[in-house]
């Protein structure tokens, strides 16, 4: 209810130049700040009811909260073999989800994990620093060097289309997932992100996903990102390597 009221008070997404948006010295919307998604896309980008977790000891803490999903049209257009692979991933999610091992989450997943991230925006580069796993990415706004190799967080090249920051992300490896439900991609993944101010404290974040090895056509996610308004908000460390060492190396601990 509260959300509904708030939404009613602010202009709709996609509406052309939002006048109240803060701007940088070069006249672009000022995206500097700490942002976070408030949804359950990290559990499952598609709509889903709440369900029990897989680790009994975690009880309610480990359960999946329900969510309306962020995929436009609701369904991800998997190719038949990929649909089977997704199912398999889901069944094995407790061991196969790269998030569990504290691996860098890739894009767009890094933007909708239940952790904040910080945008540091300049005309030439935009740095995105993520709390989860201390992951980071640089978005090149002018000269973009070629990507030296496939990567976890991709190679990001951005430009402004009016008040929308458009980021083209390529050079991914095939190691990351989109969510804990096993939605995945290959190293042919091509992501186009669009960040559009919705108000001074909210962005509309839209993502187009293209990967001919896995999907029959490009598809889209969209969601708001919210500014963290706490006084003196800052990213804290979530250096989760330390938290997964027992899981990953425990079998090699000296007995």
């Amino acid at each position, binding site marked *: *209810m509260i959300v*509904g009221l708030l939404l009613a008070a602010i202009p709709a997404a996609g509406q052309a130049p939002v006048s109240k948006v803060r701007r940088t010295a070069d006249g672009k919307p000022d995206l500097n700040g700490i942002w976070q998604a408030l949804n359950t896309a990290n559990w499952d980008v*598609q*709509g*889903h*009811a709440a369900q029990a977790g897989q680790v009994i000891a975690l009880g309610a803490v480990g359960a999946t909260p*329900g969510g*309306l*999903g962020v995929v436009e049209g*609701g369904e991800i257009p998997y190719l038949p073999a990929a649909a089977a692979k997704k199912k398999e991933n889901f069944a094995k999610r407790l061991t196969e989800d790269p998030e569990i091992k504290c691996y860098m989450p890739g894009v767009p997943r890094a933007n909708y994990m239940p952790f904040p991230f910080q945008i540091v925006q300049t005309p030439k580069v935009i740095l995105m620093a993520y709390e989860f796993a201390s992951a980071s990415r640089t978005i090149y706004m002018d000269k973009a060097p070629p990507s030296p190799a496939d990567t976890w967080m991709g190679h990001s090249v951005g430009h402004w289309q009016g008040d929308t920051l458009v980021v083209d992300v390529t050079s991914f490896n095939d190691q990351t997932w989109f969510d804990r439900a096993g939605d995945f991609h290959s190293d042919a993944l091509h992501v186009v992100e669009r960040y559009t101010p919705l108000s001074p404290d909210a962005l509309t974040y839209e993502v187009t996903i293209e990967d001919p090895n896995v999907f029959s056509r490009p598809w889209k996610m969209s969601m708001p990102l919210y500014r963290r308004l706490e006084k003196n908000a800052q990213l804290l460390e979530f250096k989760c390597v330390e938290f997964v060492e027992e899981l990953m190396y425990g079998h090699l601990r000296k007995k």
Partner: protein
Amino acid sequence: MSHQCVAWAGVLAVSWLAGAPLAAQAPPVAKTRPAAKTWAAPRTPDGQPDLQGLWTNSTITPFERPKEMAGKEFLTEREAADYEKQVAENSNRDRRGATAEADVAGAYNDFWFDRGTKVVASRRTSIVVDPPDGRIPALTPEAQKAAAARAEVARRPPTGPEDTGLPVRCILWPTVGPPMLPSGYNNNYQIVQTPGYVVISIEMIHDVRVIPLDGRTHLPPSIRQWMGDSRGHWEGETLVVDTTNFTGKTAFRGADQNLHLIERFTRTDPDTILYQFAVDDPTAFTKPWKGELSIRKTPGPIYEYACHEGNYSMAYMLEGARTQEKASARAAPEGSR
């Protein structure tokens, strides 16, 4: 008004709850004013008929019409008074049982109950109003099979918590539904309205139904919820709530996940809401059916019904079942000797 249980132990270990008759104190007086046809509910600032306030749906009217009342749709005033008296006597739980076992079974004495003491305002002999015989229509063969399986589970001692029924597990009570039906106690509701929403806070089990009125579509079919997914709209004086997206586990009176429930709330006088519901689930019932009851104003307040937090009975029931098994396992080899 009778006292509501503040959920000490929360759940009753048994499932007699639904249909059983009643006891105790002065009823929350439903000033049985005949619903004047001309009476119109007050309006909220945004023009909705005002349903706000604290309400109870406790009643001793049985859900389905008992055999002995077959063919009789309404009680006369005299009959209603007799019936209320008789039910009060029959269900008096303050009597000390003849045997120790009966006495223990009455441990939840009348203090704990709040079934109400009155039949519904219409003096109907059942909450089910359609079919006219006051009985739920037959289940489809498939639904019969599912119901038989559930009955089989209910018959045996529980192997685990999932065998014990949704109220016992503190997942879902008849008070919540939907449809929202009276149970043994804590049959209390608070309705709050804001532009675009009707919100029903249900004392047992602290569930809140937030019903949007803005015409949005239902959730996608992939999202299933115990309480389904409700959308409301106004038809004149009547709030109509359309609910789909139930889980197959909700199983209201044998319904499956295809249940399409339509509830209608009409304020007929300052102290009464006529609550009607229509059950449409062609894969579970051989035909649609309907029910209605009156919801009466109550002074409240609404209490916190912490069900799961105090659900000692679940552990005891399971422990009891395990103990019984052990005992019978010990007995068996002796018997075979």
